[in-house]
C-alpha cells in the first residue's frame, strides 16, 4: 500500500517527495524520451566497451 501514493504522483508526472517510503509501480524508467535518444545511448556505451 505504501506504493500507491508515489504511483499516483508518478502517473500525474508530479515529483515524489523523498520522505515517501513507497516506490512508484511505474518504476524509474521514464519512457518519454524519443527512440533516437535510446539509440544514441546504446551507441555511446557500446563504443566504450559496454
Amino acid at each position: 500500500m505504501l506504493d500507491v501514493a508515489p504511483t499516483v504522483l508518478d502517473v500525474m508526472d508530479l515529483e515524489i517527495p523523498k520522505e515517501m517510503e513507497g516506490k512508484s509501480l511505474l518504476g524509474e524508467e521514464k519512457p518519454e524520451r524519443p527512440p533516437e535518444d535510446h539509440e544514441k545511448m546504446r551507441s555511446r556505451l557500446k563504443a566504450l566497451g559496454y
Partner: protein
Amino acid sequence: MKNVILLTIDTLRKDVLGCYGGKGFTPFIDSVQDKCIRFTKAHSPGPYTQAAFPGILTSSYYLEYGRGKMLSEKRVLISESLKRAGVTTAGFHSNPYLSAYFAWNRGWDVFYDSMEDEVDDKVPYIKAGEINNKVSAWLSSHIGGIAGYNPFFLWVHYMDVHEPYVPERNYMDMVDPSIKLNEGEMFGLFKDVLLKRDVSDRRIVEILKKLYCAHIREIDDGVKEFFGILERYDLLKDSLIIITSDHGDEFGEHGGLSHDGKMYSELVNVPLIIYEPSREKGEARDTLMSLLDIPPTILYLFGLNQVDVFEGHPLLPLDDYPARGVFGEAVDKHGSTEKGEEKEVHYYCEGDLKIIYRERDDSWELYDLNADPKEINNIVETSSAADAMKQKVSPRVRRYQR
C-alpha cells in the same frame, strides 16, 4: 576556502600515479604533492561507474535503492544539497552513464554531459582538453572579473583513460617508443582482445597496459592545463581540489581485462588526493576510507549541515575521522560477454582484511592485504576472522528485495 572542486578521472588506477609508486607518467600530479593529502587506502564502493558514482556524488551504495537504471529520487546528489544552500554548482563530463538520460543532472546550475555532441569510435568521449575549454568558458562567465562571485562547487570528470585505448602518438612515444601501432591496430586490439577479455597472450596484455599508460601521461597534461586555467582566473588560491577515480582497470591480475564485477584492489583501491593551496607540506594517510565520504567532506568544507541519508563521514578534520570498515557492491558480469541472470558481488574491508562474496557461485574469498596485497592467497578456510567478516557482508546481499 571559498570553492570546492571535485576532479574525477574515470578508470584511473592508483598504482600508475608516480606519487603512489608508479613509473613517472604523472609528472604534474606528482609535482603538487607538497600541497596535498594523499590517501593510500581510499576505496571505491564499486568496480565500475554505475556502482561507484552513487557513492561519489550521493554518498550511498549502488544497490541501496534497488536496481533501477535511473538515479533513484531517493538519493540526494551533493549538487542538490549545495544548490539549496546557495552554492553555485557546475558539472562537466562525458560519461554516458552519468548523463541527464539517467537523471544525474539534478541540482546543477550548469550541467554538460556531452550527449548532444558527436564522438567517434576510436575516441568515444569528449577529451579533457575540450572539457577544460568548456570549464574555462563557464568560469570566465561565472566570476565575471569580480571578486564577489558566488562560491562554487565544480565537478569535472575526464574520460581519457577509458578504453578503447587509442592514445595519441606523442604520448605513446613517452611511454614506449618501440610500440609502433597505428590507430587502426590499437583499435583492433580493443575489438579482438580487450572486448573478448582475452588474456591468453601476456605480451599483448602488456601492450594494452602501455596504451593505457599513454593515456595516463596524456591525462596528466589535462590536469596540468586545468590547474593552469584556475591560476589564470586567480581561483587556485581559493579552491580546494579533490582528485580521485571511480575505479581502476584490470590487466590480467585476476584473469581478466577492463573493469567487470570484480572487487580486487586494482579496481577498487583508488587514488584520492586533496589539494589544499595553503598547505606547506604534503602528507600521506593510510586511513581506510570510502569514496562515500566525499559528499560529507564537501558539505563540511562549505560549513553546511550533513544530509541525513548520506552514509559516509567527513574526511576532515583528519584527526576526527573514525576508524571503520568499508563496503563495496556491484552486479557481476558487467561489461563482459557473458549473459544470464544478474548476480551480486560484495566486498568488505576492515583493518588489513578484505572479504569478497560472489553470489554467482556462493563463494567467499578472504585476503590479508598487508601480507598479500595482490590478493592471491585466499585464507577464508583458515582464518579465525572469516566468520565475523562474513557476517558483515551477508545482510547486504539482495537487501533491497527484502
